[in-house]
């Protein structure tokens, strides 16, 4: 009986002491947390992909709360997230254009040949050490899937030796853009379906030698375009997505069918 009593009392005293200590420490070391920061963090998607330029969603939330980053800074969340953040911060959401990654190469096995067989680490970045290229086109997709391995959404697939991005799954975090050693992937507006599927900057005859689907820089597309949105620079067609009206006339005329529509 005595033992039970002593135990109960001593535990109660210890509990009170520890409680008091915690209250004291809590007050003493109190850090002011911006409530908006945790609210913003709640709204962010939590990918931790780093596409915003900050080290994950926590850092992004802190930056928004401090006013360093814009409400529309998260490419993954898009418009709904931007609006919610704007509501929390009391600012304008700003314009949000949904983007998607796009692989600027069409050179599948059907259109190109391999000039050497590659064995070794199955990673494009390993394969191009020292500039080595085993496909006929020096600029084209190697198809070993460095982009696939970094994509957090599983949105990229290699089909027939060329990477292909699923627009619906892609959240435009841009990790694949950084991973591709050939610099083939670009973020383009989600709405835009007219795009050039080639990155070869060589002149026409040389391109024809290495790939049956490469842009030969013939300028036919520029003549078709009514809104001055497509230009040929360094033997390669480029589309200005702000001007493009997606009429698809360039794609129709393209002799090598390298423009999608």
């Amino acid at each position, binding site marked *: 009986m005595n033992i039970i009593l002593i135990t109960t009392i001593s535990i109660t005293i210890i509990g009170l002491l520890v409680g008091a200590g915690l209250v004291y420490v809590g007050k003493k070391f109190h850090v002011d947390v911006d409530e908006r920061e945790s609210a913003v963090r709640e709204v962010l998607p939590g990918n931790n992909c780093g596409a915003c330029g900050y080290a994950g969603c926590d850092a992004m939330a802190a930056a928004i709360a401090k006013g360093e980053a814009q409400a529309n800074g998260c490419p993954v969340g898009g418009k709904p997230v931007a609006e919610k953040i704007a509501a929390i911060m009391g600012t304008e959401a700003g314009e949000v254009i949904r983007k998607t990654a796009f692989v600027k190469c069409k050179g599948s096995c059907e259109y190109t040949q391999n000039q*050497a067989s590659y*064995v*070794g*680490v199955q990673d494009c970045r*390993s394969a191009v*050490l*020292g500039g*080595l*290229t085993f496909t006929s086109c*020096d600029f084209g997709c190697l198809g070993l899937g460095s982009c696939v391995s970094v994509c957090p959404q599983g949105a990229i697939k290699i089909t027939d030796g060329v990477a292909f991005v699923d627009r619906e799954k892609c959240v435009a975090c841009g990790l694949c853009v950084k991973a591709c050693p050939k610099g083939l992937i670009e973020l383009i507006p989600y709405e835009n379906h007219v795009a050039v599927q080639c990155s070869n900057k060589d002149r026409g005859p040389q391109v024809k030698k290495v790939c049956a689907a490469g842009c030969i820089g013939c300028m036919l597309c520029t003549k078709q375009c009514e809104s001055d949105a497509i230009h040929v620079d360094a033997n390669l067609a480029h589309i200005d997505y702000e001007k493009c009206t997606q009429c698809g006339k360039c794609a129709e005329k393209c002799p090598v069918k390298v423009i999608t529509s």
Partner: protein
Amino acid sequence: MRKTFRGGVHPDDAKALSRDAALREYLPKGECVYPLAQHIGKPAKAVVKKNDPVLVGQVIAEADGFVSANIIASCSGKVKAVEKRRTISGAMQECIVVENDGLFTETEGFGERRDISAVTKEEILGAVKAAGIIGLGGAGFPTHVKLAPKDPGAIRYVIANGAECEPYLTGNDQLMRAEADAITEGMEIVLKLFPEAKGVIAIEKNKPEAIAAMEAACAGKENVSVLALPTKYPQGGERSLIDVVAGKDFPITALPADAGCIVDNVGTIYAIQRAVCYGEPLFKHVLTLTGEAVATPANFIVRDGTLVTELIEECGGIKEGLELKKALAGGPMMGFALTSLEVPVVKTTNGITLLPNDAVAEADEMMTACLHCGRCTTVCPQGLLPQIMAEAVDMGDFERYEKKLYGLDCIACGCCTYVCPAKRPLTQIFKHTKAEIMAKKRAAAGGKK
């Protein structure tokens, strides 16, 4: 001095194929192609235009910056183009293409023996720089930079690397047999730059003729000696040599000069002698064309810019009944595969190995998961842990790879890949990881500026 370094492997050296083939000079028949980036550092700047006449020994591209080197024409004729061409690494690079007139007319000012008894340090360094000499062992570091360390008085050893530990290659063996006196003289010239240093010519014991020739040439010289080393790969690695010669471990982050050593390939030393004594710039070097697939393996003195296909033809082509499965620039341990034979030889190309079987593809088929046997760790001459390093790379933990595992100290010698029973491409993983970490560092440094 120690007997040997730790780790290493004993691959079949296959030197019997070409070791007794005497050096012969090969003059290119067709056009010569000179890539502007043959060395470590900034690519050289072309100083000739299309249709300019060119003579042998003329500087056609100038060093651009301190760590860079001149590029010298090796044939006479007319500049056909300055354009992108495929080079030996497989990449498309800016090259100077010279239409060869077949006469090999030389510029004035070289070939005459000069009196070098009163040559000054500045003159030596100037001659080396003007001659466009770079490390001919393979890495291609500009020699005038290497020969000018912060404190020349602290250098205790100048090592001429004649180990030639890479299997198949025999060019340096032949060079030492034929030009022993010139190499010794070259060594004495380098020693003039370093008053406190001793010259050591390091040769593996599997080259008894070269050792005998060099010993005869060094006889009676106080400052230069020959050191016969056990045959073990990678005996010719810079750090392995310093381990043995200087006889002490030095911090893994240190440069050879910090350990009081300068290591130069014997080919480089020979080139220095030619440049200082004859004013001859570097436009030719030794090259071994060998391998089981080639009809008659040979040791050439080859001119820069010669196409590999021409050399193979000169050797009688591919052996009858065999198929060329793999072509390597360099030997099988450190060399890299060629995607095309229509590429020019550059200053650092010291061997072409043609093989009738593709061991890499065979190994790839047998690859399994890591067995954690630790054999890679026992052979690593750098004392690294390849198995753990590969694990870190797998997990994308580059920071651990760099800071905890010292992965940047990998010299890509290939020993771990050679012994791996699971046939894992370890060396390739490390090469790629190192390249990526260095690229990130450069980007970070650029961002700060």
